[in-house]
């Protein structure tokens, strides 16, 4: 290979440049850990309508399924949990009675606030 020394040196410099942000933190020892969001568990209950893990991943799909089941198919009860399928009455019934629960996590995760609250009425009256 011609100019092997120059090529390898160039590659090394590029590598250092690309990994600079990581190296900086390794060298300076500054912590980059993200704070954990404490949503808390609603009082007096231990379980959600599905496992907490499933809810974290899939709540948006579950809500849309509930919406279609209620509005388009005329169903009312979620068989697995036995709860009535309602965004405000059921979810917020346990979770702090307010969309604040949803909002805090969405803000934390950088998710745009879903438009559901333009129509669904937050029982605490906050918009």
């Amino acid at each position, binding site marked *: 290979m011609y100019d092997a020394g120059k090529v390898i040196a160039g590659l090394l410099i590029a590598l250092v440049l690309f990994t600079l942000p990581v190296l900086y933190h390794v060298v300076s020892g500054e912590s980059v850990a993200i704070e954990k969001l404490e949503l808390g568990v609603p009082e007096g209950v231990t379980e959600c309508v599905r496992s907490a893990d499933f809810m974290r991943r899939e709540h948006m799909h*579950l809500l849309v399924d509930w919406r279609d089941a209620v509005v*388009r198919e005329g169903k*009312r009860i979620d*068989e697995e949990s036995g709860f009535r399928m309602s965004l405000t009455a059921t979810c917020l019934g346990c979770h702090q009675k307010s969309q604040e629960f949803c909002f805090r996590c969405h803000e934390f995760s950088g998710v745009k606030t879903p438009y559901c609250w333009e129509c669904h009425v937050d029982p605490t*009256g906050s918009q």
Partner: protein
Amino acid sequence: MSMDRRKFFHLATCGTLGLAGASLPIVRAGVRGSWLPSGEALAAKRWAMVVDLKKVLEKEDSAKLIKACHSAHNVPSIDDPQEEVKWIWEEHFEEVFPEQSHEFLPESLHEKPVLVFCNHCDNPPCVRVCPTQATWKREDDGVVMMDWHRCIGCRYCIAACPYGSRSFNWRDPRPSIAEQNPSFPTRTRGVVEKCNFCEERLRRGELPACVEACEHGGLVFGDLEDPDSEVRKLLRVRHSLRRRPGLGTKPSVFYLVDDVCEDTVKEILGEDLQEANGR
């Protein structure tokens, strides 16, 4: 083993499709659940409403019926007639029944206020024109439904409805709702709305809000397909009208009219009205 290009592509394509197909249930599994209807729901093959005009006029408090509906459904009260939103309201007899009115009807009848709302037609023109199926006729009970999640506000349905039963939200309705009822969502600017025959109350086993607000049975709600239902009995023994019958929309709302002019008739014929009517 040798394989030509063509065969290789065939196998590769089929293999990929097969894998994708096989993984679909895995992707969907765990997302869906199964749903049950409510045990307490009221059921009918075709819901219908009978409006007893005379009773509503003389005994019921129409404002109360309207308020019961509008507060149950978070219907905004906007004074500007260009932008108002209504699920149930009053119109003059002449405008409600243009085809059945003529200039020789008793004058007192022309201006009589008649309660009107969505007719939940058997053959609804609004449903035919909706491009997103945001409005559709429920096959099992004939209710003409609205799915506010799907409405894109094109207003074709408003143009199609011959009864003016649909309202458009020209502005954010929330500031015009005196007291928001958290158990029924409001609507937003840019969607259409109308009476839903209290579909959400039927699901809970309750009669429509306006019917419940009646103290003298001015509105009667029941199954049109059941020959023994109260509505069918009334339609058998009384004279009833449907709005704009010539259009073929077949409304599920009926108006009993045989006794609305009883007072006028009484004046003309004297007290022996019962005899004159033969009943």
